[in-house]
């Protein structure tokens, strides 16, 4: 599986969005989970809560540290991934699959244009990895 799938949009903070009609699925990228290391705890907003683009939506904790997760897109939470709350390691093993975090009803599809394409995200993590490599 590609580490940056072609059918997704990305944020600079390493979240991904899969927009499917009016509902978007959100997760963190392969690069993000690799940087975090073993994920052991996930804190997600309740169903019905509202998340705002580029604001914190929750927290992912690895053995080492807690990291904020930012909403790549605004909307109302229609589903939280119960499986990932029970098995946080899914974020590591399947970041684009069973390790998704929440689904939101898109508030403004125009926001998608503010996100990175797979190519842009690839060069973004290229830069990040280069700058953080030493």
């Amino acid at each position: 599986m590609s580490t940056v799938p072609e059918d997704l949009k990305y944020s600079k903070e390493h979240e991904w969005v899969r927009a499917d009609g009016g509902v978007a699925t959100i997760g963190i990228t392969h690069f993000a989970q690799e940087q975090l290391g073993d994920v052991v705890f996930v804190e997600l907003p309740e169903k019905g809560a509202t998340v705002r683009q580029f604001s914190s939506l929750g927290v992912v904790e690895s053995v080492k540290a807690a990291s904020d997760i930012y909403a790549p897109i605004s909307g109302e939470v229609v589903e939280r991934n119960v499986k990932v709350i029970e098995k946080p390691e899914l974020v590591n093993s399947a970041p684009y699959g069973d390790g998704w975090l929440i689904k939101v009803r898109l508030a403004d599809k125009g926001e998608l244009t503010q996100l990175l394409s797979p190519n842009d995200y690839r060069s973004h993590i290229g830069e990040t990895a280069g700058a953080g490599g030493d």
Partner: protein
Amino acid sequence: MRRTPLFDKHEELGAKMVPFAGYEMPIQYEGIVAEHRAVRGRAGLFDLSHMGEFFFKGRAAGAALDRLVSSDIAGLDVGQARYGLVTNERGTIVDDVIVYRISDAEYMVVVNAANIAKDRAHLLAHLGEDVAFDDRSVGTALVAVQGPRALAILATKTDADVRSLPSFGVTQGRVAGARATMARTGYTGEDGFEVFVANADAAKVWDALLAAGRDAGIKPIGLGARDTLRLEARFSLYGNDIDETTDPIEAGLGWTCKLDKEFTGRDVIAAKKAEGPKRKIAGLVIQGGVARHGHEVTHDDKVVGRVTSGTYGPTVEKNIALAYVPTALSKVGTTLAVRIRGKDVPATVVKTPFYRRVAE
């Protein structure tokens, strides 16, 4: 930033390196959880060359150390080691150390890397002129092999009779041809050995043990898993759980203090023990969320203490922590809370260690 003689090995093995106590050290290779499980189930290899090694020589060395360290150093036979605390006049903790009696009149004291300069000053200030002191921290490498397969792995690479070495025993011999001091000590809660060699021999010993352990499933282990392993086994971490503001009684280390001998701070510690500590370190299991060093502990919405160490424990599969809390709230079964990101998350005081190895 210093590098241990094994720096190139860590790079080759793909370790993530972080600054620690003035050294660039591996925090993880494959991942903390996988490394942790390797040590519990099979074997792990650690580079601990940042640790400090002090040598004390002379007929008076044992008696001098006995006055500087809380435990029964005078009672050590040649070939024995003991855990103890270096305490000050206020009865608080300067460092936690292991003292090894190498020969009749020679002792090695292994100290925490971050405390090398401080300990050297403290120990030298209290040492008589008839004891020769040698700080060999920079020139000495330390490789630890830990886990249920550690004995079998080391045994194939040494001429020393490590099978008959008891826990906390120390002996000398060769490992992969290099002169080494081997001790059955560690910081993981598993059986295992610490192997002290000269820097020039470190890479040879590291490679030999890694190769000898390949079939047994040995993995190189970083500081990340070292921390989760030691916390499950409820070993104190200096700078987190103990320091110069904590005394041995409240830290749950009263067992390391031989109060019927003279040592620095003894009277203060004995008085503390007699009157009972106001606060005590307690083991906590947190119901949701990971407690971290510095988080507040609350009871009925009031802050009553602070977390000193916290992590997810991969073997116990729980979020575990140590925290100083008022003695009245330190009993097993007490419900407290840890304030994580502004929310009071329920936590229960549990018996420690969180993990105890079952004899094979």
